[in-house]
């Protein structure tokens, strides 16, 4: 396997992966997160769901250190992240933000190599080892043939795989993906999610994926966390979380839960077509998700 070598040489200690404990955050007077606690164990793929404004992106910004929590703890394998500088934090948590920028003038290989930044000193150039890590990451994300193409000329699905590869070479035990499938077509969505699931299994990373598409999340994630108004409403297996009552309570959407004919995973469908319920983010009205 191409990525077993990647997995064995990481310095990941045996531990519990990512653990968030009682995170609070406010933008001025507006409370955004009100006591969020969740865990993502090693090798576990956890989907974070919730309507726009529920605090998903803020939560990710707290974990990567763009924002500081008012209170609460973020642990990776038992280490509190709050005392760490940007470099050592990035060696523990890698992230692909929502709609990442593809800078003009860089090739795919250049961009993936940027993920080695937290492992290099200010005046240090990347060496053979870094190049080998980058090549392996491009192989396991199936972008090796694109290595010399400009990043700005890729399709959405290819670009997303490039950013995943860049996050992989950080060799962090925790990987965050903020809506990695938004703006992707049906095939590219499945490719990216299958890739993320495989990497999560093979490398034993803790992966947190923010998603809007409940059905897609249910197909791929081990566990789901449903957030609402800055709190975790419920978490558990897709079957436990995606109930008609939960979706109605959080999204204000009237849905029926069906079963995937092959996997049995829950499939969320709007009930009937006669009427559109109102609400801040009604499931199924965002045209870019389908």
């Amino acid at each position, binding site marked *: 396997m191409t990525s077993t070598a990647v997995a064995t040489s990481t310095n990941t200690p045996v531990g519990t992966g990512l653990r968030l404990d009682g995170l609070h955050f406010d933008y001025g007077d507006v409370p955004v997160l009100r006591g969020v606690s969740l865990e993502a164990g090693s090798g576990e793929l956890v989907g974070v769901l919730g309507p726009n404004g529920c605090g998903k992106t803020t939560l990710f910004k707290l974990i990567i250190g763009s924002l500081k929590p008012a209170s609460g703890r973020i642990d990776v394998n038992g280490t509190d992240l709050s005392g760490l500088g940007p470099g050592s934090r990035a060696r523990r948590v890698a992230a692909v*933000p929502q709609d990442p*920028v593809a*800078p003009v003038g860089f090739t795919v290989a250049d961009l993936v190599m940027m993920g080695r930044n937290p492992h290099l000193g200010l005046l240090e150039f990347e060496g053979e080892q870094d190049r080998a890590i980058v090549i392996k990451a491009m192989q396991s994300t199936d972008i090796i043939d694109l290595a010399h193409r400009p990043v700005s000329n890729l399709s959405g699905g290819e670009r997303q795989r490039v950013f995943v590869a860049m996050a992989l070479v950080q060799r962090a035990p925790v990987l965050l993906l903020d809506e990695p499938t938004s703006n992707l077509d049906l095939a590219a969505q499945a490719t990216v999610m299958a890739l993320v699931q495989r990497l999560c299994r093979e490398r034993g990373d803790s992966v947190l994926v923010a998603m809007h598409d409940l059905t897609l999340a249910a197909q791929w994630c081990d566990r789901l966390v449903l957030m609402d108004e800055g709190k975790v409403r419920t978490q558990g297996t897709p079957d436990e979380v995606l109930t008609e009552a939960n979706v109605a309570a959080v999204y204000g959407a009237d849905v029926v839960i069906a079963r995937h004919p092959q996997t049995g995973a829950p499939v969320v469908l709007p009930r009937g077509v006669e009427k559109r319920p109102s609400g801040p983010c009604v499931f199924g009205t965002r045209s870019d998700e389908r």
Partner: protein
Amino acid sequence: MAVRLAAGAAVVVAIAVLAAGVGAVAIPLDSTVAIALDRLPGVSMDGDWPDSWETILWKLRFPRIVMAGLVGGVLALSGAAYQGLFRNPLADPYLVGVASGAGLGAAVVFLTGSSLFAVGGGLLPIAAFAGAIAAVSIAYLVARRSDGLPLTTLILAGVAVSALAGAVTSLLMIRSDPSLRPLLSWLLGGFSGSRWNHAWLILPYVVPGAVVLLAYGRVLNVMQLGDDHARAAGVNVERTKIVLLGIASLLTAAAVAFSGVIGFVGLVAPHVVRRIWGADHRFLLPMSALVGAGFLILADLGARTLASPAELPVGIITAFAGAPFFLFLLTRKAR
């Protein structure tokens, strides 16, 4: 990469040597090289050149060429750093107020203290430097937030500070009468007064500053992903912004203090490099410095020869050569 940079450096040296021979008194290439090498410690060249050639080269042309090369290199390096930092290809080293601050500082010296000015050329660069640093500092302090430095706010603050300093400069110029002309020619920039001690005065800024900027090449690459993504990839975003802004502004202020406000070098040189060789800042920064140095040495050659015996402000030459080129780049972008 190292080979290209070495080739670029060789081209700059060749331009400098060739430019030294051109002027009211033409000096052949072999004599120029011999006169240059003769002064090196442990080197003695034979040759029979008139003493006047030696004086012309060592007292006038060499310091001028060295200053033009240093200032061109510094402006282009700072321009490349600004463009990378602001993620905006239209940024130039004067974006956040260095030029107008220096102009105001110079205007105060020219127009209020002609007696002070007479004390020595020393006061003008100090005032220009102080004005430049003051303008950038004000823009920075206005834009700064408790949780970081929003770059858009910084640009807007810089524009406002520039407008204010420019207005005060205009007011001073209108209220005073004939002493306006030297200020105008200073604002357009030039190297006619360049001396060796100017080079010695700016080198303590240029050398360490350039080393720091060059060291940030890889980090600037990662910064192109945006603040959040760069932070996720381990960049200390806020410290990077402050270091790059501070050093690039300091370097630009040091250059402007002795040469005046020379436009288009800092804007165009990084563009040329990016078009030809790509956007990797580890290469873009040093190569921009070389292109800027070569370009400004040539522009200064034009400034002292095109209208000889009169002297043209070098800023006019760089604008004449740089502005049409930049317009050409813009038409290509529009497609």
